[in-house]
């Protein structure tokens, strides 16, 4: 009995906080899954529009039930594990891809804060002071999903695709990091929340504070790297079907394949949100002073409006992702590496030096 009592003060878990964060995690993960689902629908509709055809329009009004039908189809299909594959790694591959895709949502500030009674609930799962580095860490883990899946399939096309994918992601990670260093020189903080709050301080209701105004080149480089990191056309070399059949997920079927395809769309959504957060003010509502508005309408409505605003910004980027896919043809592998190492990295370095010089000059 005494033992039981003694344990309690040590296991000081704040259950209210735990519950709050758990709820937030569930909302964010479900939200990104639903967005990813409907991005597949949007992709097919937009592709249809760009190619002068209709796209999926039969399941439900305007075909909006199509993603559900696709998901059901993937679940119902027979799940095949090739006999010559290494079984556990074969299962682990898509799981890792999905895990790393979902994990990044943890450090993104999805909104300011809700006020429920006395309690202030931040709309961010974890405000760690190394937020951007956390995203880089998770992105560099994302390679393993592709590599392990490709190797475990025991298929030479899969292996080649996996190695291509990994070297592409590593190469573009460098340029991505360098393009962000210039941004970090301006913000002086790695916390995503602080970066958003700094942008909200600018003139015109925050619009003039957006980092895109100060870092246009950095943003462009980051955008290109995001395409490469998500394996999207024009950089979808790992699944170049005319060279590698179906790429690293050639041997996969059923929901394991679904996980791989889905992880790509979640990655797209998350990187769109990261771009909106870092360069386009995050949950800042442009041309509106949030503090004044909160006095009129109450903080909760303004916080939710901010979240809607962030989602609209990231949906615009999702549209850009899809638009580019159906417009620009795929790069050749040597062109990809050429662009990454000989053009992106020098540009990012130049951007870094110029930004550093200007920061130094203005401080004096």
């Amino acid at each position, binding site marked *: 009995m005494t033992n039981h009592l003694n344990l309690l003060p040590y296991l000081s*878990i704040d259950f209210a906080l735990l519950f709050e964060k758990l709820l937030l995690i569930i909302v964010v993960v479900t939200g990104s899954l639903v967005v990813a689902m409907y991005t597949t629908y949007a992709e097919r509709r937009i592709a249809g529009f760009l190619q002068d055809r209709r796209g999926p329009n039969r399941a439900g009004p305007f075909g909006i039930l199509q993603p559900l039908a696709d998901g059901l189809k993937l679940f119902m299909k027979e799940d095949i594990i090739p006999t010559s594959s290494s079984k556990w790694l074969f299962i682990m591959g898509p799981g890792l891809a999905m895990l790393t895709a979902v994990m990044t949502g943890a450090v993104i500030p999805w909104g300011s804060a809700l006020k429920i009674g006395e309690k202030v609930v931040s709309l961010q799962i974890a405000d760690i002071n190394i937020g951007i580095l956390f995203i880089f860490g998770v992105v560099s883990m994302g*390679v393993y999903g592709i590599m392990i899946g490709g190797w475990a399939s025991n298929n030479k096309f899969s292996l080649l695709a996996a*190695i291509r994918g990994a070297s592409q992601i590593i190469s573009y990670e460098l340029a991505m990091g360098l393009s962000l260093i210039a941004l970090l020189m301006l913000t002086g903080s790695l916390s995503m929340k602080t970066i958003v709050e700094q942008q909200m301080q600018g003139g015109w209701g925050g619009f003039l504070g957006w980092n895109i105004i100060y870092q246009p080149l950095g943003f462009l480089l980051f955008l290109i790297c995001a395409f490469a990191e998500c394996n999207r056309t024009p950089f979808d070399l790992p699944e170049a079907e005319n060279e590698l059949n179906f790429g690293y997920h050639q041997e996969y079927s059923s929901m394991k394949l679904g996980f791989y395809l889905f992880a790509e769309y979640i990655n797209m959504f998350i990187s769109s949100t990261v771009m909106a957060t870092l360069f386009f003010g995050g949950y800042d509502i442009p041309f509106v002073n949030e503090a004044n508005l909160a006095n009129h309408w109450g903080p909760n409505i303004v916080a939710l409006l901010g979240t809607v605003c962030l989602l609209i910004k990231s949906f615009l980027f999702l549209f850009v992702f899809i638009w580019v896919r159906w417009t620009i043809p795929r790069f050749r592998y040597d062109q990809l590496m050429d662009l990454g190492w000989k053009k992106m990295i020098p540009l990012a370095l130049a951007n870094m030096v110029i930004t550093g010089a200007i920061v130094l000059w203005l401080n004096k």
Partner: protein
Amino acid sequence: MGTTEVIFWFLTAVAVFSALMMVFSKNPVHSVLWLILVFFTISGHYLLMNAQFLFIVNLIVYAGAIMVLFLFVIMLMNMEGDSEPRKNQWMTLAGIISGGTLMLVLVAALKDTGTQRQLVQMKEGQIGLIHHLGMVLFKDYVVPFEISSVLFLSAMVGAVIIGKK
């Protein structure tokens, strides 16, 4: 034991287990994957010591970049467990002796350190935070820092020269 100490011992157990699995795995790819798990658990320890920057850099550099290169090489060489040549028995013996000596030295060195009693250090101490680390690196130790960057540069130049041959 508090929650953090439970986490500490859990991470320790996983780290030792996966390190052993790394050594005993027949398949080199499995070894690399176990090694990645070791890096994760050690990063967890950094986090418990409130060294957030070290935590994430360990993950990005070791687990994210260096291990990918390991995996690359092993996958391309396509080593099979059976085709690996038998190693010399003397080599095994030498390995055991040198490894054991290193362990002895490490245990002797760590036996009496002050941090022995302090397993976790949550929400205290600034030493591992990025702001403090930057100040120390670029103010107190700026010359060694720059010299080590020259060392990296020479390594890069060397790699380029070897690659061009």
